[in-house]
């Protein structure tokens, strides 16, 4: 059972990272970034090529994934989302654009990388064994330990950035009230771009981390997006602590479920449980009623 809990914590940490990215974009722009899963997938491919194919060290490949996705985020925001938000007569149209970019990224990845499942060699060799495995001991590869550590580190760094730096405060101000932030001299446009870039970069880093465990393929995007939606809905859209809680909950639920139930029954139960939960808490644990 301890093994299951550790797997849950590992998954939960990375999932929280994914959910944080999605919730960041939502809180700043009120856009549900459907392409979040596809950005995760691209992050996985960046690490696959840089680290797995070209032999760059992992500690360089992972930040590279974040930077590449951050740049993609900036470009998407500048060329796709801002024009649509400015000209459309219905705000649902931002959702349309998000879906459009998701399909674009997925088709791009399918064309460039093909449908094959890709994996990378282990980042660090070795296994940590605690107790007798046959009697409930724990097995944890150093590689997985590293993934969990980096995910937690990234979350802490993000929280620190948002809480204690000037751009971080600007982000929070824009999330709270765009007009008021503007009146206080916050550069809303730059801050919005920054928020979108951070959201995309988080997806990229999460993808770069999990590629070391699960590998990656071009079709994984909508699956990850769906998971991200679950986490964000449980925690409440646009709320940081909600995203972290949702991520941890889903990570543990998945690890425990896969231990008990066969195959895809786990997610069936998770979906049903989530729908029932939302009937009682329509805005998630900490969310506000958005529109």
């Amino acid at each position, binding site marked *: 059972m301890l093994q299951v809990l550790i797997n849950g914590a590992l998954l939960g940490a990375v999932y929280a990272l994914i959910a944080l990215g999605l919730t960041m974009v939502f809180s700043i722009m009120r856009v549900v970034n459907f392409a979040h899963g596809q950005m995760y997938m691209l992050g996985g491919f960046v690490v696959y090529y840089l680290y797995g194919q070209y032999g760059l060290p992992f500690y360089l490949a992972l930040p590279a994934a974040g930077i590449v996705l951050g740049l993609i985020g900036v470009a998407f925001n500048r060329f796709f989302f801002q024009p649509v938000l400015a000209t459309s007569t219905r705000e649902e149209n931002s959702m349309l654009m998000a879906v459009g970019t998701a399909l674009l990224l997925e088709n791009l990845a399918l064309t460039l990388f093909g449908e094959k499942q890709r994996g990378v060699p282990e980042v660090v060799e070795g296994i940590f064994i605690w107790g007798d495995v046959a009697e409930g001991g724990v097995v944890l590869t150093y590689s997985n330990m590293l993934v969990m550590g980096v995910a937690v580190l990234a979350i802490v760094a993000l929280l620190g950035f948002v809480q204690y730096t000037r751009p971080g405060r600007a982000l929070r101000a824009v999330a709270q009230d765009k007009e008021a932030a503007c009146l206080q001299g916050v550069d809303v446009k730059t801050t919005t771009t920054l928020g979108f870039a951070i959201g995309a970069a988080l997806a990229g880093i999460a993808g770069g981390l999990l590629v070391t465990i699960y590998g990656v393929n071009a079709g994984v995007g909508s699956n990850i997006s769906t998971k991200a939606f679950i986490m964000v809905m449980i925690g409440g859209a646009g709320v940081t602590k909600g995203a972290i809680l949702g991520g941890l909950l889903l990570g543990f639920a998945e690890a425990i479920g896969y231990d008990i139930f066969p195959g895809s029954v786990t997610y069936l139960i998770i979906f049903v449980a989530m*729908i029932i939960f939302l009937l009682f808490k329509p805005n998630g644990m900490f969310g506000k009623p958005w*529109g």
Partner: protein
Amino acid sequence: MNSLKKRDIYVSFSVLAIMLVLPLFIGQSRYLLSVLMNCAGLSVIALGVWLIFSIGRGYIGQAGFALIGGYTTGILLTRYNLSYWVVLPLSALSAAFFGALIGSFILKLRGIYFSMLTISLTEAIRLAFLNGGSFTQGSKGITGLPQPFSGDSPLPMYYLGLALLAFALLLIWRVHYSRVGRIFRAMRLNEDLAESFGTDVWRYRVMAFAIACGLGGLGGSYFTVFIQSVYPQSFTVEHSIYYMLYCFLGGLEYVSGAIVGAFVLTILFELLREFQQYQTLIYGVLMISVILLLPNGLMALGSSKSEGSKKALPPIGGADTTPGKADAKPMIGRSS
């Protein structure tokens, strides 16, 4: 009659009329007919999605109900040997029933929560069929379904598709351009306000959802006998997203928008076939371009109403409210 409705009528009639006579010219080409049958089936399903957008909800779960319709068809045809003419309405009814049942709970969610939840719902329904044991035959699906028409000609199936399309169009038309349609618009503009004027919002919401899901089941049933099989993978999240895109790209202000979107996008995809491995990529790029250039859909092309004046206050209630620019109601991000 306002210009929006006029445009809607012209386009709807043209599509139906062209579909009616087209087999005279391409009747021998199985490929062309099957593309058009695809378009017709997708339009039926997308019209349901369109109705949910007209009550102000971003609905991305239609594939789940198409799957329910498809499986109802598959199970009734193989296990009970019923005639397809009994099975087809039953499939629509079962999807509508489950839609009303699920909808009566989830429709109280709004905005992005509803959208995200319906995505999850698609996946949940797929997983339910995947784990349905011997009843749904798991990932093997139900195969070898009998065709409703004897003979080799694809034309009967084609005209069945056209008939279903005409039925779905008529149904949505009747709903949208009637008192109920005005209530739906009032609900999109401001649900709380509509409720405070004595509208039984809950009832109308569930009604809209049942109709929408019923159309999903109808289309799902058509596709199931069309390809003579149904699998859990037959209708997935990706399909749900495409149904939504058809409505958006066609135009949410027009009933025929869903049809135009389904036809244009499906035919476009087929036209791009000669680019082979770049087909999906070019398709994606073109789709983004349309969203950028025509954010209000293809039907708004050349319409003076499509431009600007986002801030205009919506006239609420009132006979024949123009469902155009006036009710530019933000669905996402309204802080209430």
